[in-house]
Structure formats: C-alpha cells, structure tokens
C-alpha cells in the first residue's frame, strides 16, 4: 500500500513536469530539453534555501522564478539569436549543470533536517487526525505521513492544472496557443510570436522547476543528476495522457497530462516490483516514447494499405 501511495505522490508531483512539457512540446512543438536542467535547478534552489531555514513557500517560489528565467534564456537564444530550438535547449541545459553545482555548492544536499512542504503537510495531517500515526483505509493501514503528503501533491497538481487551464482561456493564453498553431496568423493579429515563445518557455520551465522543488522536498534530497531523462519522462506522460483522454481539447489535454503522469509512474512502480532492473528504466522509457511517436503513422499506413488491398 505504501508503494502505491508513493507512486501516486511522485506521479502527481511529476505531473507538473508533464504540464510544462505539454506547453513546450504540444503547444509550441518545441522539444525543450532545458527541462532536464531546470528541474534540477528548481530542486537545487529550493534545497539550498530550505537548509538555510527559508520557509517552504518562499524557497519554492524562488525555485519557480529561477526555472522561468532558464526557460526565458532558451527562448531568447532561439528567437533573438535564431539558434535551432533543440540546440538552444542543449546550451542552456549544459550551462545549468554548472550553475546547479554552484547553487548547491556540492553535488547533493540532504533535506532531512529542514522544514519543507512535506513536514508542513505531515503536521497538518496529524493535527487533523488528532495525532494518530496511521489510519485504516479500506482494510489497509496507511501512515498519516504518507497520506497527507499524497493529498498535498494531489492538491498542488489540481490547483496548477486549473490555473493553467484558466490561463489558456485568457486573451494572453489564447494568443500563446495560436502562436504554436500558426505563427504567421498571430503576427498578423499584432502579437510578437518571438515574445510569446519566450513567455511560453518561461512558464513551461517554471512548472518544471516547481516539480523539481517539490520532488526534492518529497524525496528528502536534491541531486545534480536528478534531471537526466526527465524530458522523455514528461513526453511519455503527455503521450499516455493523450491516449487516455482521446480528444485534443484544452481541458482534456491538461487533465490528461496529470493522469498520464500518474499512470506512467504506477506502471513503472509495478514493473520495478516485478523485477525490472532499475538501470533499464530510462531505456524502456525511451523505447516507449519512440513507439508512441511512430505508432500513429504506422497505423495510418496499415489502414491505407488495407484500403488499397480492398480496392484492388
């Protein structure tokens, strides 16, 4: 049971990463690998502030701002200096590796003694339950600590998803969606498509950094290596989410990204439980995304050739 709760918690936290990837990859069709650096940046900034006794809210907010800055940097490299999008992301990601080391001062910061959102959630949970250590849920004993952290991450994911949905329905958010859809059209409507991309990547990486900051607080440490493979992870979540909800309407895609992240984390937890070598995890994730990316094209081809055969 605690395995399930752990998987759900990480799933909700990483759904913020998925929402960030949803913006860069699905709205702008921009494979923004900055995410691998900015998730670590979020964790690093939050961690160093937390061990220096900053409040969790302030530490996490500054982590988000740092992530937004790195996203904006990629956007500026791409739009103002006309560097290929993937390369712009790689440049910033590489630079962030050094920056993250500088921020943390070493390669790993443990957060066991610091007061984090997780400790706050535990306090709130045990207060509400009158100080009980565990709770009987459908016949299982669930520790108050795990349950309150799960509920906290669920609340954050829902809140951020709702805010994002509302944002995309505003004048500014609609213009942002249109930019990815048809940049010529949005310029003719008086919007600088370059500025929209910079802003969009800033929001995207702000969300990714938020995921990093919360992940560090949940797992109790920040590590300079924790970003590796995160973009593909986010892509997998987005793709699973799209398969789950089917349609590509705004509200559904946002919900789908959150659901996809949780489902993917659950699948991973089950696979690990069944004896999957953790070293193979990234290979499998990459293979999964590869298949998901080519599958629609292959299916269309099969359909076409079948139709052709029927015709002949």
């Amino acid at each position, binding site marked *: 049971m605690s395995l399930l709760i752990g998987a759900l918690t990480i799933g909700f936290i990483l759904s913020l990463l998925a929402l960030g990837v949803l913006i860069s990859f699905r709205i702008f069709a921009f494979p923004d690998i900055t995410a691998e650096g900015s998730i670590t940046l979020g964790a690093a900034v939050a961690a160093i502030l937390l061990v220096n006794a900053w409040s969790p809210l302030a530490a996490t907010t500054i982590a988000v701002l740092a992530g937004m800055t790195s996203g904006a940097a990629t956007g500026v490299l791409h739009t103002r200096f006309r560097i290929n999008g993937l390369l712009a992301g790689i440049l910033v990601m590489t630079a962030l590796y050094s920056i993250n080391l500088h921020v943390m001062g070493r390669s790993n910061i443990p957060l066991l003694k610091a007061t984090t959102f997780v400790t706050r959630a535990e306090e709130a949970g045990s207060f509400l339950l009158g100080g009980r250590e565990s709770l009987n849920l459908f016949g299982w004993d669930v520790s108050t600590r795990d349950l309150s952290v799960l509920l906290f991450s669920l609340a954050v994911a829902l809140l951020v998803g709702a805010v994002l949905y509302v944002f995309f*329905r*505003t*004048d500014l958010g609609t213009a942002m*969606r249109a930019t990815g*859809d048809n940049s*010529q059209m949005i310029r*003719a*409507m*008086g919007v600088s498509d370059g500025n929209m991309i910079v802003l969009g990547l800033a929001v995207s990486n702000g969300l990714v950094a938020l995921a990093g900051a919360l992940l560090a607080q949940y797992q109790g440490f920040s590590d300079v290596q924790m970003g590796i493979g995160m973009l593909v992870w986010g892509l997998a979540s987005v793709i699973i989410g799209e398969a789950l909800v089917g349609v590509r309407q705004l509200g559904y895609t946002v919900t789908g990204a959150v659901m996809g992240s949780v489902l993917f984390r659950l699948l991973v937890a089950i696979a690990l439980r069944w004896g999957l070598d953790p070293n193979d995890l990234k290979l499998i994730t990459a293979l999964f995304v590869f298949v998901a990316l080519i599958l629609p094209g292959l299916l269309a081809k099969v359909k076409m050739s079948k139709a052709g055969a029927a015709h002949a």
Partner: protein
Amino acid sequence: MLDVRRVQKTFNPGTPNEVRSLKGVDLALVEGEFVVIIGTNGSGKSTMLNAVGGSFFVDAGAIHLDGRDVTRWPEHRRAGMIGRVFQNPFSGTAPNLSIAENLALSARRGRRRGLGWALRGDLRSQIHEVVRSLNMGLETRLDNEIGNLSGGQRQALTLLMATWLKPKLLLLDEHTAALDPKSADQVIHLSGELISRDNLTTLMVTHSMHQAVNLGERLIMMHRGQILHDFRGAEKRRLRVDDLLGRFEEVRRADLLDETAAEMLRRKYV
C-alpha cells in the same frame, strides 16, 4: 494614407539566385482608395504587398502609413494598423483553435493582451452576429476547431478577422487564388461588401483579369519589379479584360525584343 517611396528589395543578394524583386517602386494611396495590383509572374506584386505588411524589411526606400514611418517596424507592430488576408486559406487562422477563439483574437488585433477572459459574454454574442452575417451556417459551430472548415469558409472568416477592428489598410494577397470558383466568388463578393461598408483603404493583388477589371477604382500593372501602368478614374472604368490582355501582350513582345536584341548584339560583338 499609404505612401511607398523608392522601395527596393533584392532577395539572395550576391548569390546566383539573386532576384531584384522591387526596383524603386513609388506608390501612394489616399484614404478609402481601393487599388488592385496585377502583374506577370515574378513581377513583384506579392513582394510589394509583403513589403508593406512587414514580412521583411526593404533594402532602400521608405514606407509611411497614416503619417507614420513604419519602414523599420516589425510585422506584428504594423499589424495594429493593417489587416491581412493571405493567398493560402490556411495562413490566416489557427487550426486547432475554435472559430470563436480565432475571432476573439482578431477583436484585439494590435492591442494589449492581458489576463482577461478571451471569450467574454458580450464578445461571444458579437461573434455570433458577425459570423451569422456570412450566411454559411457557421454560427452554430462556433466552438468547433476552425481547421475542420473548408478553404473558402476559412478565407471568409479570415476576412472578418482582418476587418473586425477597422484597419487603416487592408492587404489582400491573391486571396481567392487557392479557392474553388464558387468559394472564390463568395469571398470576393464578401471582400467588396466589407470594403465599401467601412470605406477601407485597400491594396489587393490578383491574378484574375476579371477581378482586376471589375473591382477597385484604380489598377496598377507591375512588371519586373516596377510599376508599368497606373489606370485611374475614367480610364480604369473603361478598361476591359481585352485591353489588359493587350497590355500584357505588349509587355511580352518587349521582353522578346529585348532578348533577341541582346542575342544579336552578343553574336556580333562577343
């Protein structure tokens, strides 16, 4: 209203693909004037429109719009004053956004976009009204993705979007060339209606002699990056398709003559 002075544009300068697209073009439009541009392939008529719209910066010359020098203004900044409809019917709308959202975007053309709800209640009913005026039955599908519509329907909506906020200048770039004849008729009819209703200053490029003769109060014929003829007033009203064909034939002969003359000279002296 629009004042284009000695504008030059060369694409791919210094390469074998160098094209001198505009060779010092002068053109002035007064407010409310509807000017049609016609020309041979590669005459620079679309380049001319794109230079005014700001798709690129010109190499030399100046462009003034409504008394302001917009020569170095980027495209999106000029869009506050200019409404545009492109040749490709898919260029003017965002396919994954709904009809209503696309029109809502155009209701703020060139204005600040903040965190206000894009489809405010009053705007929605206005959009419904405007779309209903097309008589295409699209007002019942306002929440459908615009990408599912036909080219003609999308071009008609693009026209509505370009003119929702009355532009200082409307640019129409062969906007019916990619449509089937029936849709082209509908769109050209709608264009004429909107232009005369709001008395819009309009610059329209077309390849259709028929449109060139029947629309607008002034006709400009371009060839090789220059303005060859400028028909106005009574002369424009008298102009028939045959006259235009005659002018094009003259141009063609002059070109042929140039080439044969050059060939003769080459044989003699080189």
